[in-house]
């Protein structure tokens, strides 16, 4: 987290406007625009499998962004993010099924409802911090999971609840190809909003709370307000991500939103880089592609002696979990600032090329 604000030498800003621009250089902006255009063209060329991966990256990335605002920017720890993700998924399906609200409005409403729940569980954060907070959010995870398993009226019990496809002006986004654009739009908006948030007074207040909460309080930042606000924002984005997930899979069951998913969200944030907007996306890409890469590796090795010795086919689930654990540990020990830091170093290398200083 230390090097997030690191700037290369010779990078002098002469006014606040330039210090706060979203894109530091025109090249960066062009890159982002090119990336978005490229993503828009993806459904024309990519097959269903690639698209489904990209949709996954989209909705998980939104939730991971929320967690990064909470953990990376505000320094609050949450081990219950999957529960909020699940709450968003169920709320959106529930609103659509029981009140006949169009899915278009259900998704943001689900985000808001989840934000309220996040706010409620964030209230202890006003009083406690660090370890205690981690444990309180662990309780939130279990309590919400229990709530999902218990309340049949809300979640449909063991059989799950049905989520209708996303529709707009009578057009139904029920294929991967069309739904991709919905997720893409939400992802772009979420990431733009988050970037903008971090340029504003509120965003800087969050960072101040993380860096030194006593100093922040002395400078007139209301700690309680910003800690709970951060929880609400995180839950809001988790809810949006969850709702997108629900309408993509079209059926939501309560088993998936467990502690392991929460840990995976944390892993995304840590691998991507705590306190980095771009990092949230990079980390999500990494975590989504990791199991795919492992599956591909298993397929490539099938039939060889390694396969027979390890029993890869039956055990790939365990191997995947082990890989998640190992990746978390490895990144924390060897690259605590995550992929975003690596990316900054690559950029700095090319900026200064061929002289390294």
């Amino acid at each position, binding site marked *: *987290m230390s090097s997030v604000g690191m700037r290369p030498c010779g990078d002098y800003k002469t006014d606040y406007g330039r210090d706060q621009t979203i894109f530091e250089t025109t090249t960066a902006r062009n890159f982002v625009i090119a990336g978005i255009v490229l993503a828009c063209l993806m459904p024309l060329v990519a097959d269903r499998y690639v698209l489904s991966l990209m949709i996954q990256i989209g909705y998980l990335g939104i939730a991971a962004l929320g967690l990064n605002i909470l*953990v990376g920017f505000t*320094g609050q*720890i949450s*081990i219950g993010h999957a529960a909020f993700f699940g709450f968003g998924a169920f709320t959106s399906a529930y609103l659509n099924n029981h009140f006949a609200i169009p899915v278009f409005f259900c998704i943001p409403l689900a985000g808001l409802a989840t934000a309220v729940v996040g706010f409620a569980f964030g*209230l*202890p954060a006003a*009083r*406690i911090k*660090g*370890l*205690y907070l*981690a*444990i*309180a959010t*662990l*309780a*939130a995870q*279990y*309590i919400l999971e*229990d709530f999902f*398993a*218990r309340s049949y009226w809300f979640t449909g019990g063991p059989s799950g609840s049905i989520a209708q496809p996303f529709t707009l002006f009578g057009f139904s986004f029920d294929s991967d190809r069309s739904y991709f654009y919905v997720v893409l739009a939400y992802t772009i908006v979420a990431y733009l909003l988050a970037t903008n948030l971090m340029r504003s007074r509120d965003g800087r207040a969050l960072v101040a709370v993380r860096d030194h909460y*006593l100093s922040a*309080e*002395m400078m007139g930042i209301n700690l309680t307000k910003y800690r709970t606000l951060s929880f609400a924002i995180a839950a809001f984005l988790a809810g949006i991500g969850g709702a997108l997930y629900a309408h993509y899979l079209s059926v939501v069951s309560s088993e998936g939103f467990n502690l*392991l998913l929460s*840990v995976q969200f*944390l*892993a995304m944030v*840590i691998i991507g880089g*705590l306190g980095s907007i771009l990092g949230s996306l990079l980390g999500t890409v990494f975590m989504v592609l990791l199991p795919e890469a492992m599956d591909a590796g298993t397929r490539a090795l099938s039939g060889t002696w390694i396969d027979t010795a390890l029993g890869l086919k039956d*055990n790939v689930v*365990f*191997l*995947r*979990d*082990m890989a*998640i*654990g*190992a*990746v*978390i*540990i490895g990144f*924390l*020990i060897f690259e*605590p600032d995550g992929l975003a830091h690596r990316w900054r170093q690559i950029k700095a290398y090319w900026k200064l090329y061929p002289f390294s200083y």
Partner: protein
Amino acid sequence: MNLFIQLMINGLIVGALYGVVAMCFVLIYKASQVVNFAQGEFLLIGAWVCWWLLTKQHLPFIWGFLISLAFMTLFGVLIQIVVLRPLIGEPVISVIMVTVGLSIFFQALMKWMFGVFAQPFPKIFAVTSVNILGLPVQSVYVMSLGVSLLIMLGFGYFFKFTRMGLAMRATAYNQTVAASLGISVKQVFALAWGISAMVSTVAGVVVGVVNGVSSGLSGYGLKVFPASILGGLDSIIGGLVGGILVGLMENLANFFDSQYLHWGNLYDVVPYYVMIVILMVKPYGLFGTEDIERV
């Protein structure tokens, strides 16, 4: 009423085990300021190792037990040296996450190596149950209560009367001062992890003998949180009392649930509700140090 007493005895016995695990958890927290989310995996690995020695290597119980204790002590020390030591001075979130990573890793590894099904321990006691207050109680439970008490007494002796125990208490109180007085803080950290892993193994083996060894054992690691929060995160006695209270609470909830409420699953969630309340009202728990900060 009979059921009630039975459940309370169960609660006491399970609670004593929670207490032992919570004590191990608090030991690590006190000595090295690490919240160990992989505490349950210590139970799990210890129990599996002991099970493997008994059933696959056909060792007598006492030897298998002792060897797994020695192995787990080494294992705990190794984990501290390899994984936790590079993270000294990193933010709390990194340290917590590394233990979460360890937990995920070893849980999957154990499933991979030993399968997902519960495996029973070979029979250790000739008599399966004894009568206490006219109620049949499994003799393993009696043993587990005895073992728990022994461990607690051992902890008490270790911290009160031995040199190393004193060094650990000094380190827990203030690392810098302890280091300046010639205590090797590194050694203390490693030892704390070793002891914690070893004692957790005892608990793991006891639970394994009662219920069979399965990945469910790592759930004990999560029950530690309500227990140690209830008792106070930095109090060893607190961990013990908290563990017993959580055990009683679970069974009390179970009793009311099955008799009157019929909500189901209260057994598992009640400790977490209580924990949230404790965190709101009295975050330092029953015996914890009150850490007052004024600006």
